[in-house]
Structures are given as C-alpha cells and as structure tokens.
C-alpha cells in the first residue's frame, strides 16, 4: 500500500478528477479510495519514469561528468597553482611559454580567418545553388572529421617533407613549410575546415533563397545581396562556427605535432609545450599552460551557450507563417 501511494504527487493538476480517474487505474487504488474517501489519490502519471528511476539516471550522468570533466579541470588548476600564484605567473612568463602562446594565437588567427572565408563560400555554394557533384563536396567537407589528425599531419609531411613530392623543389627555392609556421597553419586549417561550413549549411538551407531573390529583384547586385541580406541572416551561425573552429585550432595536438618539428621557442604551440614540459617533470609550468587552454574551453562553452540561443532564433524563420 505504501509503495502504491509513494509515487502519487499530491499537487497533480488532475486532483479534481481523482475520484473518477483514479478508479480506472487499479483495483488497489480503487479500494483505497473507498476505504478512505477523504484522502484524494491522484492518478499515477504514466508519461514519465517513476521518481527513483529518474533519480538514478540523473545521478549517474552527474557523477560521470564529475569524474571525467569536473575533476580533471580542478586538478589542472590545482596543479598549476600548487607552488603558489607567483610560480604560476613565472611559468607563463618564460620565453618558451610566451613564444608558444604567440604561435598558437597566430596559427589560430590564420586558420580561423581562412576557414571563415572558405567555409562561407562552401556553405553558400552548397546551400544556394544546385550543381553536379554537390553531394561529393558535402562529403569532402566532412573528411577532416573522419580522418585521424595524425594522418592529416602525415599527409603534409608526405607532400612538403624533404622526401616528399614537392620537397626538393621547396628546398631548392628555400621555402620552409614543414617544421615552420606555414606547415602548422596548413595542418590546423585542414583539421578545422568543417566547423564553419558545417554550422552554416543547414542554416542557409533552412532559410532558402527567397530573401536573396527579393533583394535581386529590387536591383541589388550579388555582393550587395550577400552583405545586406545573406550575411546578417547567418551572423550568429557564423560566429558559432568561428568559435568552435577557434577552440579546435588552439587546442589541436595530433596534426600539429607531426608537422611542427618541436623546435623549442619556435614551432611549439601551447598543446605541444604542455606535453614537453610534462615529460620534463616541470609540472607547474606544464599545468600553467594547460590551465590557459582549460580557460579557453570554459569561455568557449559559455559563449557557445549564448550563441546557441541566438542561433535558434535565426533558424526559426521569424517572418514565415508556415
């Protein structure tokens, strides 16, 4: 009897109908209603799981996240600050650390900038025009997601390395791509290419071409149409893609590791430096750099949440009656 009533929520909105609706539920509650006519038994809500089940599921999810996300994050900051705040800032002020931060920012700026351009062009082409090979192009855009980053890096070594296809030519002309900034930028661009295009294609497809047609019929040129109509309509989606692209560009390890050459103070990005310092038992310095990347992740997360709300507004065609 007690288990039967424990799931009954007293403030269920159907309370008024309880005497009739409850009768249909089970003989047990019917008997109860007869025995204690004052106690109104609300009908059990079958739309959702029983309370204990819900509790267990939520608890599982929360503890999983705590162990795998929150704890490591705490450890990163705790280790970085284990020798005090001055040691933390001293580690960040090391020339090697500063050089890594500079390089990471530079590479991120280059790859985000170029992928912004490529991504918008690719999404524009795919969403607004029909052409043969379109499906193939869409698949191609996803390629960097499905290939291991190490393989992506290796491709550039095969192309630009001393033994690579263009290696001898590049050497002869004294052009340094591998083990230099261009190589790192190329590998990062490759790995982060899908983000902008992927976040724009569904948005642009959803919005269709009606507003563009209206703009053109009003005399706007192609560029005017793009900057005055298309771009304002996709700005939140674009920012969203740029944000994810930036987070990945700064955090990329595998592909960059292959092409960087690990020249200290020259071709080490922040993620690479974290590994090197850790291997050299400089835990405070290693976790100090890691804490910067962790903060980037946290900021990205907050901005992403805000952008997702804006994006929802963009996706729902606001002036469409359908």
């Amino acid at each position, binding site marked *: 009897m007690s288990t039967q009533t424990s799931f009954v929520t007293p403030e269920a909105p159907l309370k008024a109908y309880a005497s009739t609706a409850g009768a249909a539920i089970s003989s047990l509650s019917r008997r109860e209603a007869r025995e204690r006519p004052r106690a109104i038994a609300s009908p059990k809500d079958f739309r959702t799981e029983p309370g204990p089940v819900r509790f267990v599921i939520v608890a599982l999810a929360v503890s999983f996240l705590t162990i795998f996300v929150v704890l490591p994050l705490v450890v990163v900051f705790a280790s970085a600050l284990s020798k005090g705040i001055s040691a933390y800032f001293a580690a960040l002020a090391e020339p090697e650390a500063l050089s890594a931060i500079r390089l990471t920012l530079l590479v991120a700026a280059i790859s985000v900038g170029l992928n912004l351009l490529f991504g918008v062009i690719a999404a524009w082409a795919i969403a607004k025009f029909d052409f043969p090979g379109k499906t193939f192009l869409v698949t191609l855009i996803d390629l960097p997601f499905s290939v291991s980053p190490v393989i992506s890096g290796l491709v550039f070594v095969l192309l630009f390395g001393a033994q690579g296809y263009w290696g001898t030519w590049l050497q002869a002309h004294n052009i340094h791509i591998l083990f230099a900034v261009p190589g790192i930028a190329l590998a990062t661009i490759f790995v982060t290419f899908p983000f902008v295009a992927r976040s724009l294609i569904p948005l642009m497809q959803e919005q269709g071409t*009606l*507003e563009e047609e209206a*703009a053109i*019929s009003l005399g*706007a040129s192609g560029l005017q149409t793009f900057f005055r*109509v298309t771009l304002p309509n996709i700005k939140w989606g674009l920012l969203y893609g740029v944000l994810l692209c930036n987070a990945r560009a700064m955090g990329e390890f595998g592909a960059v590791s292959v092409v960087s050459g690990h020249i200290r103070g020259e071709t080490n990005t922040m993620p690479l430096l974290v590994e090197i310092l850790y291997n050299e038992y400089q835990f405070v310095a290693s976790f100090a750099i890691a804490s910067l990347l962790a903060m980037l992740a946290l900021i990205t997360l907050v901005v992403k949440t805000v952008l997702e709300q804006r994006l929802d507004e963009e996706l729902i065609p606001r002036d469409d009656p359908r």
Partner: protein
Amino acid sequence: MTIEVKNIVKKFGAFAALDNVDLKVGKGELLALLGPSGSGKTTLLRIIAGLDWPDTGEVRIDGEDALGHGASERHVGFVFQHYALFRHMTVFENVAFGLRVQPRAVRKDEATIRARVKELLDLVQLDWLANRYPSQLSGGQRQRIALARALAIEPRILLLDEPFGALDAKVRKELRQWLRSLHSEIHVTSIFVTHDQEEALEVANRVVVMDKGRIEQIGTPGDVYDNPATAFVHGFIGESIVLPVEVSGGSVRLGGRPLNITADGAASGASKLFVRRHDMQIGPAGTGSLEGAVRHVRSFGPIQRAEIALTGGEGKTVIEIDAPRDRELQAGEIISLQPRRYRIFAAQD
C-alpha cells in the same frame, strides 16, 4: 508598360513546365494567370521577372529584350507568396532597400529616400508600423509591406506570385479589393498568379487560364466564365455538371437516351456535356431531357443545392444543382431537368 512573351519553352528534366507560351499584356492592365498547381503559371511569372530562365523563347518588356538582362536590371517589382521580407530589417528599411542599393550615380539622398518610403507606407496605409520588424506583423500587413517594397523602385511592371495565398479567407477578400483599388490608383502594368478562380475573376481585367504548361484561354472574367474555350476551362472555372454523352449527327444521347438539346456544332463521337449548376431548369417529372430523384437538399441564402440521382443511363449518376428557392424541393421527389445553357466538348480520353 507592355509585356510580350513569345514561344516560351521551359523544361525541368523531362517535364515541360511551359510549352510554347505566347502572351501579350497591354499597358496598365491587371492580368491574372489562373491555373491549378503545376500549370506553369509561377514559372512564367518568374521568367518575366528574371528569376528563372526559359530554354527557348523571347520576353520583351516595353519592346525591349528582357532576357539580355538579369533580374536586378529589369526594374520589375516582384511580390512573393511568403512575403520574403528581410527579417533583420525594420519595415522602413525593407521598403527603403531598393532605393539604398541603387548605383551611387542615381541613388537619392537620405532625405529623399525617407520621404519616398513614408509616401509608400502611407499608400499601403501602414506608416504606423515603420519601426516594427516583419515578425511583429500579421500576414496581411506583411504582404502590404512587401508590395510597398516592390513599388519603391518605381517598377516598370509589377508581378505578384500568389500574393494572398498564405492569408486567411477574410484578409484575402479585403486585400483583393484593396489591390484592385490600388491598381486603379497607380496603374502600373501588373500580372498576378493565382489558383483561386474567384480571386482571378474578381480582381483582374483579363484572365489567362493555364493548364499543363499551356495557355487554355485568354479573356475577360465574364468571357472565360460564360464562354469557356475548352473543357478544361469549363471544368476549372465555376462549378460544372459534367455528363458523358454521345454526339451523332446533331443529336445528343446520354446512356442511349436522346436528350432534347442540339449538338451546337459539336463533332460526332464520345463527348462531354458541361452545364453550370445553376443552368439546370427544374420541372415536374416528364417535362425535360433528364429525370432524377432528389436525394438531399440544402438551402442557404437565395439558393437550394440539391443532390439528384439521375434515372436511366448507365449506373448511378449523381449530380448537384443550384436552384432558386421559389420552388422548394423535397428529398425523394422525382423531377425533370433541362439544361438552359450548356457546352459540348469532345471527350479527350
């Protein structure tokens, strides 16, 4: 301005959306392109606007070849079924758009643009909405803003694609009358596409009836209603009773029984007899060509609509007629029917 369309063919794969279409629209006309969905009417409109391109043919606006120019150079106002207002701009900026994107050499100064937009918003009687966003407007208001936006560029012609299609019945009726009076005020040559015959007949000076990529008939609203040129037009415009008949040497037979009407010059063979619902004369049994039992009567307003099961002929043919209420029909009653006005077209298949 005049519009001339010659031999337009447009195919989407194997499907011919437009099959050799010719059309001339005179200065200041308000023309309706009427047809079921898939008849090619919207495609034709988009080709005139430059939003679609024909496979072959010619489009002339005011005698000048239009196919040599893109949509942005044609100075054609286009109103979309789903408004296509710029969602991130205010109503004011929507209407001003066409003026702001003009080449620098001809672009008006800000004060002139503002005055012009104000004037257009007054014209569509929505000046009080200037600072709202499209999402804050009702459907009818959006469509009027879309019209003001199209008129802002002082278009040579105005094209409207199912302009009232997305609106509810009451707003539709209001906007119809409003469009008519607006047209008589500004007199710009206009074509509007609709699948709603009532809309076409009520608003347009001339109606072009289209089916399967071809023009079936061009005429005044009275013309296409009273003198339909083809079986399709008769069936599509107005409610018709259609009976399969046999024409031989001037006489018309329904299921073997001769009807007391002349073939009106229709060729011999299997044919279809078209009669408007209200063109069936009702009489006591035994006085007309057709006879039937009243199955069901509904009366509303000045008419009664009766469902009648015809006797004789093959199987059971049930027709609906509209009769004046001077003689109330009763269910079960046997009456005779005589077509007052009718048309006979050869059965196509």
